[in-house]
């Protein structure tokens, strides 16, 4: 097939434009929610769970509703934690959760990472769950590429998005559609008390995404909505390096004795 016909039929330019569209909040209105995201975070702040929750809520609010769906989505939210993750960063606190979410959270405490993966998969398969949030610490052996692929396929098939928070983890192989690395950022000063901490803000790096080029954003919540600004100083690194960012550090080197 000559190149001209190919370009006419497939409209390569449009595909490329779609491919190079930068990520921004509210994209779920066009493309639907991202089925499987990972958020890498440190354990000394709650940014991982907070960003996962903010992304989930952003997708959930903007995702197109079918004709058959009721206008008010009151489905439950499954929040899975391993005991180690709960010990390090605490459990969700109902009074601090967003108001339209607090009465719908179902919390699962798993002893082992295998149990947590089982719970994540069961949650993703359930039609009466709006989205699933998982928190795992480290790089457990059970969460290899096969397990991650399994979760992605289940999430795509049943349409229940999964947001997996990886605490203190290496960037290992994963089939997640979007992979974020979140750090903390100082919040904007509130109008009435400049001394006080303001609305939450995070510095988030999208280092691997299927449909978007990587980049770094300063994400924040204003009035319960996710807002994105560019990183303040120093633009993001060259895309070529960041593209393979997920592949550079494959696994933690095994201990010598094993």
């Amino acid at each position: 097939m000559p190149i001209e016909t190919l370009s006419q039929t497939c409209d390569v330019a449009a595909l490329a434009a779609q491919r190079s569209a930068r990520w921004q909040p509210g994209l779920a209105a066009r493309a639907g929610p991202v089925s499987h995201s990972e958020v890498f975070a440190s354990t000394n702040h709650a940014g991982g769970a907070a960003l996962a929750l903010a992304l989930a809520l952003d997708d959930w609010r903007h995702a197109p509703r079918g004709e058959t769906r009721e206008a008010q989505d009151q489905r439950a939210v499954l929040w899975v934690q391993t005991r180690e993750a709960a010990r390090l960063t605490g459990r969700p606190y109902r009074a601090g959760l967003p108001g339209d979410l607090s009465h719908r959270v179902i919390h699962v405490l798993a002893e082992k990472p295998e149990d947590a993966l089982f719970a994540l998969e069961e949650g993703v398969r359930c039609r009466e769950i709006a989205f699933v949030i998982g928190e795992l610490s480290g790089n457990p052996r059970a969460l290899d590429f096969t397990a991650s692929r399994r979760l992605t396929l289940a999430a795509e098939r049943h349409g229940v998005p999964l947001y997996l928070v990886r605490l203190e983890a290496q960037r290992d192989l994963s089939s997640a559609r979007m992979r974020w690395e979140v750090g903390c950022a100082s919040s904007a000063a509130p109008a009435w008390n400049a001394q006080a901490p303001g609305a939450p803000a995070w510095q988030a790096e999208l280092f691997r995404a299927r449909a978007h080029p990587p980049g770094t954003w300063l994400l924040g919540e204003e009035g319960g909505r996710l807002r994105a600004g560019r990183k303040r100083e120093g633009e993001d690194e060259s895309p070529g390096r960041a593209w393979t960012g997920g592949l550079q550090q494959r696994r933690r080197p095994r201990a010598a004795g094993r």
Partner: protein
Amino acid sequence: MSSGQGPTSPPPRRILSIWLGALAMDRWHLAQEQAEHGPLVLIADTAHGPRIEAANAAGRGAGARPGMMLADARTLCPEIRTAPSDPAGDRALLEKLAEWAMRWGPWSALDSPDGLLVDVTAVAHLFGGEPRLLEDVQAAFARRNLTSRTAIAPTAGAAWALAHFGAERSILAPPERDHADMPAQLADLPVAALRLDGDVLTVLRRLGLKRLGELTTIGRDALQRRFRNRRSPAANPLVRLDQLLGRVPEPLLPVVPQQMPLVQRRLLEPIRHRSLLDRVLIDLGDDMARALEGSAQGARRLELGLWRVDGEVVVRRLELAAATRDPAHICRLFAAKLDDVDAGFGIEMLRLRASWAEPLALEQQDLEAAAEQHGTSLAACIDRLSVRLGEGAVTRPVLHPSHIPERAQRWQPPLAAQAPVQAELAFHQRPLKLLDRPERIAVLYATPDGYPQRFRWRGSVHDVARVEGPERIAPEWWRERGAARLRDYYRIEDGEGRRYWIYRQGLVGDGRGGLPDWYLQGLCA
């Protein structure tokens, strides 16, 4: 419908009271299958030695009375025989009899400890009138070797009184029928016919009131004053009198027989292998689904018993988050619990019992493979999770009325109903996540109660850049010890933008300990 009753008015209420005066002794004779003609008493052990609960005719003739200590009875009659009493067994027999007594009326109620009440409104003509009905009742109980006394009256209280203290098979006509005066007909009964407690009867006897008719002679006001702070009907003669005469309603709790769905398979050849066990389990699940569907119920708790050849019984119990009768779901949950079953020489019988069932309406089955297409339901998902992860692993956070932040949240089963609570106040900013235990931090701050400047948590130093507070939360004095210290909460942000919720426990010089400690309790978004 004569004597002035309109065609639409309901027939007058008729209650049949059956008193099984010697229930415990009759039951003992039935169990022994032989008559004991010598003196015999049934005893119960008390803190002061054995006490007589029931005595047969020879025993009563020898001087033994219920309530008497056995030692006292032995002094009167040394050759008295004893047997242990069994109140729980008597109660079980009475429940069975209450169910059986529904042959005479649409519903029956227990009248503990030794009586039954049957509603026979407008059914007497089926037995040929009320006298024939009473004869039938007594004959039926006599065939079962149970002594009984019966009466029919417009109210439960009057029927009870006549069965215990009236003539044999007495019938009290409804007041509208023959314009008879109910109080006048019942006036000769003793006050014990009012179903009163023993101490109230003693009071009435000391007041000289022995008959029901005498109660009305001293005036209602006097009785009202004497028993004004007795609320319970069994302690207040006026309430009992009004119930007897039908002036106030007396609620009765009818007995509703319930069948526990149960299916079982006896196996010709004992099974020892897991694949066969799964096959039988699927059959049992199908049978159970059919049994539950017939009664429009769904199971909440299931018990699977495995009878082994050598006499051992292995029981596996399963609780479900919502009522279900889906055999595939039940089998899948049980399969996870059967991994550690030791079959020994083989399993010869399996029995599946739904010990807790709830109403579940029939609904259309999924015609296509719906679970494959649309995913599972929430209840099925929670069942699977709690079977694999344990009972307490799947929970839902609920608010609890308390000021202390870690007490203000509790965890309950995910599908249980949430109790209504007051909404939290909007000006309180709470952290997204709360640590299981507050972690102690070392803080540099301006004493006595200044803002924190710098703190060390988990080995690293944080400089405080922004701070809001304090929000003072006092200890709950009605619950905690007197030495509990107050907490001053600060919402802080450190130099790198990490937001925390920390508190100082106590004040300098509050007399409840030394220098105050600081704790980090929550991580803000």
